[in-house]
């Protein structure tokens, strides 16, 4: 019996290939989204939950963040009876590690011997009891171990660091689970850091740069520990730090409070989106199944007359719905494997792995989903059809043709509102991006070639002379119109701020971004001077001079820089302001220009603090110059490879986040359009089938194809029209809110909204039109005969 149901279901699906394809594809697309969203939510919910001692594991936080003073842990381990163990975590340097001919650069995570007791990071090789016990031990992540040693066991091997340290591998961590917040690449004991010359005296009772984690004894009270911490602040902390408040935060909260993502918000938000998509998929499925089922009312009648009974009919429809849902789910599941890498590329702060797709809870959820969707998708048509009166069924008559159901129309409108909003969003974002990329940044973006100078040279002195010689050669080229070396370039200015006060008025203060440049920088980048002059290598006094931008002058309340000086807050030395530049955009156009101060870092030459070499050159003439430089750099041994780019490329890198946002929005646009079209496709097919006879009669009476297409389409197009009318102001409002975050933004023009509406309407028209045309082209005799 059941085999018979499956057979019929299969043949039915096969007979309506197009319909089935649309149905299944629409569902699969929706379900992939749901699956991915569910996995993301699940990953967030199990964030850091793998640590065995999670309930006793705490971060010692201060009132202004997750970092505390460096010596705190030692004090706690020594004098806090309720603290069982603990570890500090901090990063200080990122040297190159080499083993034989292989090398990698990784930031070292310094930790204490208790690290592997406090956290649950199993070791693949080595013993966790003594992995970080001594000063010269290093524990590698499995990725780093693989890069340096391949698949062999590296325990006991010696690594050379670019700063001349030598460390012995004491362990390799097993792959870190994707839901871990802390993902150290290499771990070294803090004892090693203590011995480093450049770290000495940093670990005082004032500076906060260390994360301190403690494992409390079972049953310990956090209140007692916090009380004791108060005592430590009072007795040990440096003057100026005595007002700090320390507290314990359970490690389970760590990711939520200090991680990249606001997990609580995302769990809630993503669950809502997933549920929303699931509902749309379910409603679409009901509509589509209903559309097919209604054409089979006579078959239902025949089967009942043959003794199928209500149960038989119900079972058959559930089997068919189950088959459709099953195929859709299977397809979605398969596609999820294919699409996972694409998704991972766009995710930050969370990573999904294929193994999650065949984890037991996921499969269980998936099966539950199949059953639920089958019940929903099959249930409505099955109940409706099995209840149809036999004699009516035999005549192919429906008791009440559900032609204009409110829920259906509301669904169509809602789906198209979403589609229009997404299309508008995508268009607006794209336009804003183009506006920013093409906007006037008030510096020479097109004709500056920039080379990286911070290549981790193996012999710095030799590199310096070679590069200076290369620069001399560059000056010989007629194409090269200017040279500059600098700490940063537009788009890459450091987050380096200092507070300055005017030399003559110390009540005023202004926080400014500061950077070091040479005498060529402002010339090469074509920045206009409004007043004063550039740095000059011939004047010794310029070593203490500064150049500021217009915003800085305005915010200082000056109208001219003549005779003005600045000093750092609390400093004694006055820096004469010798130049005032126009407000050029040293950061992306997303923000407005902020106060900027340039110090003179010495004349154009290779220095340790200069990271870039900037060459004023027309890109058309750059090829021979680049070839010469590439050859020159080949002779300078370094860890990093020679690399160059043009100033506009570097500058536009700042827009990467918007670009990936646009890519994400484009996916959502596609999904919303596919689902909306699948829905409308089903309903127009349903309408065409229900009105087959009417269409036939109209054709016999002389109705043209156009009028019949119009007859079938006009209702749907009307709904799409309503959707556009609702969506346009909504999209306008939403996108204006988005644009508010930009200092320089486009105005959303009416034609953009109209365009989005038109595109949506055209897509809908095409979907509906093809189905209506099929109905309109049908032989009228056939249509009339079906009764």
């Amino acid at each position, binding site marked *: 019996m059941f085999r018979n149901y499956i057979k019929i279901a299969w043949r039915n699906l096969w007979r309506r290939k197009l319909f089935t394809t649309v149905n299944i594809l629409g569902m699969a697309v929706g379900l992939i989204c749901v699956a991915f969203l569910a996995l993301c939510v699940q990953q967030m919910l199990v964030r850091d939950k793998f640590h065995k001692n999670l309930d006793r594991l705490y971060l010692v936080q201060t009132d202004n963040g997750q970092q505390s003073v460096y010596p705190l842990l030692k004090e706690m381990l020594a004098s806090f009876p309720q603290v069982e163990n603990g570890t500090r975590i901090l990063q200080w340097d990122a040297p190159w590690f080499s083993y034989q001919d292989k090398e990698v650069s990784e930031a070292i995570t310094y930790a204490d011997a208790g690290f592997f007791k406090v956290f649950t990071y199993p070791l693949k090789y080595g013993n966790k009891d003594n992995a970080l016990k001594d000063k010269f031990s290093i524990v590698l992540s499995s990725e780093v171990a693989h890069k340096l040693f391949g698949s062999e066991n590296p325990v006991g091997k010696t690594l050379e660091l670019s700063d001349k340290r030598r460390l012995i591998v004491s362990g390799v961590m097993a792959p870190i689970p994707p839901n871990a917040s802390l993902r150290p690449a290499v771990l070294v004991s803090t004892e090693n850091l203590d011995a480093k010359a450049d770290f000495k005296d940093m670990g005082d009772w004032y500076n906060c740069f260390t994360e301190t984690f403690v494992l409390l004894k079972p049953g310990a009270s956090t209140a007692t520990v916090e009380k004791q911490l108060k005592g430590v602040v009072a007795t040990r902390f440096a003057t100026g730090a005595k007002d700090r408040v320390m507290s314990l935060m359970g490690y389970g909260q760590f990711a939520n409070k200090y991680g990249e993502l606001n997990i609580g918000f995302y769990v809630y938000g993503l669950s809502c989106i997933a549920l929303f998509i699931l509902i749309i998929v379910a409603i679409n499925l009901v509509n589509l199944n209903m559309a097919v089922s209604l054409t089979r009312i006579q078959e239902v009648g025949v*089967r009942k*007359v*043959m*003794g199928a*009974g209500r149960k038989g009919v119900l079972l058959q429809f559930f089997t068919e719905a189950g088959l459709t849902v099953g195929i859709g789910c299977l397809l979605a599941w398969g596609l999820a494997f294919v699409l996972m890498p694409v998704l991972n590329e766009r995710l930050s702060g969370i990573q999904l792995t294929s193994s999650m797709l065949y984890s037991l809870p996921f499969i269980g959820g998936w099966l539950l989903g199949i059953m639920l969707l089958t019940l929903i998708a099959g249930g409505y048509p099955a109940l409706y059809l099995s209840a149809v009166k*036999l*004699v009516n069924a*035999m005549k192919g008559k429906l008791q009440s043709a559900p032609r204009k159901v409110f829920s259906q129309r509301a669904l169509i409108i809602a789906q198209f509102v979403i589609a229009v909003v997404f299309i508008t969003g995508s268009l607006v974002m794209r336009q804003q991006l183009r506006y920013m990329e093409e906007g006037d940044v008030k510096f020479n973006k097109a004709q500056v070639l920039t080379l990286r100078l911070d290549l981790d040279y193996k012999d710095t002195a030799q590199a310096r002379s070679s590069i200076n010689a290369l620069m001399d050669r560059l000056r010989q080229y007629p194409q090269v119109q200017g040279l500059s070396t600098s700490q940063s370039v537009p788009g890459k200015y450091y987050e380096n701020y200092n507070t300055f006060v005017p030399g003559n008025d110390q009540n005023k203060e202004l926080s400014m971004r500061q950077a070091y440049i040479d005498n060529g920088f402002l010339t090469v980048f074509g920045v206009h001077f409004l007043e004063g002059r550039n740095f000059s290598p011939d004047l010794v006094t310029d070593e203490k001079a500064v150049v500021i931008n217009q915003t800085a002058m305005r915010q200082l309340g000056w109208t001219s820089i003549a005779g003005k000086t600045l000093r750092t807050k609390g400093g004694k030395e006055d820096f004469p302001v010798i130049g005032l530049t126009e407000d050029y955009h040293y950061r992306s156009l997303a923000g407005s220009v902020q106060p900027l101060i340039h110090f003179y870092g010495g004349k154009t030459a290779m220095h340790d603090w200069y990271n870039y070499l900037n060459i004023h050159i027309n890109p058309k003439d750059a090829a021979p110059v680049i070839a010469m430089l590439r050859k020159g750099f080949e002779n300078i041994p370094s860890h990093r490879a020679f690399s160059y780019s043009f100033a506009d490329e570097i500058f536009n890198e700042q827009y990467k986040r918007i670009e990936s946002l646009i890519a994400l929005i484009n996916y959502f646009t596609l999904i919303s359009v596919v689902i909306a079209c699948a829905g409308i496709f089903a309903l127009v097919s349903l309408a065409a089938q229900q009105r087959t006879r009417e269409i036939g009669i109209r054709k016999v009476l002389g109705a043209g194809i156009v009028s019949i297409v119009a007859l079938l389409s006009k209702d749907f197009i009307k709904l799409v029209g309503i959707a556009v009318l609702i969506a346009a102001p909504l999209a306008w409002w939403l996108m204006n809110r988005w644009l508010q975050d930009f200092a320089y933004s486009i105005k959303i023009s009416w034609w953009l909204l109209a365009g989005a509406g038109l595109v949506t309407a055209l897509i809908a028209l095409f979907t509906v039109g093809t189905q209506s045309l099929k109905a309109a082209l049908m032989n009228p005799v056939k249509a009339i005969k079906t009764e």
Partner: protein
Amino acid sequence: MIQLKHISKHYPVGFGKNEVLKDVDLTIFPGEFVSIMGPSGSGKSTLLHILGLLEEPSTGEYLFEGEPVQRMSEKKRTQLHRGSIGFVFQAYHLIDELTVYENIETPLLYKNMPASERKSRVADVLDRFNMVAKKDLFPNQLSGGQQQLVGIARAIVAEPRVILADEPTGNLHSDQARVIMQMFKHLNETDKITIIQVTHSEQNAAFGHRVIEIRDGKIQ
């Protein structure tokens, strides 16, 4: 076998009602071959539908093999459809997605008959109707007459005691019609199946034992 007592059927039309059957009394004995005749709109199809439990009468009593139909549960009626009553329709009403074989097999599936018995029954019927060669074809690959033969085969495969046929030859030309009617006659005579058919044709009616004339909802 079938006994109708004071059966009436009416449909609501606007504020009034449309009486289709008026106080019909009818008895049909086992093994009879009865033809119901009458002009369009006389109520003969409604009568057949009531006989076949597709519709319920508005008033009156209907005894099927001595049991009152009005008091039967939905389940019991389904049982009757499974085992006792076979239907043949003017428009054949074969299931398009199923082959000839599968169409014939379907009533047996609903009877939960074991596979081996099912197979032999269907094979038997196919053989008897000379359709073994066509068993894997789909309905739309057959002529109207052949489709109706499949329809009859399907109606008798579950060995019902009565076959109800609603203008079984209405869509067929006369040669095909004769084949179908001979089949009915044969089934009636050799298998002792009670046959009740609605027809317009005197020729078809002549195959049966008795003609029931119906006019304006009343048996003449």
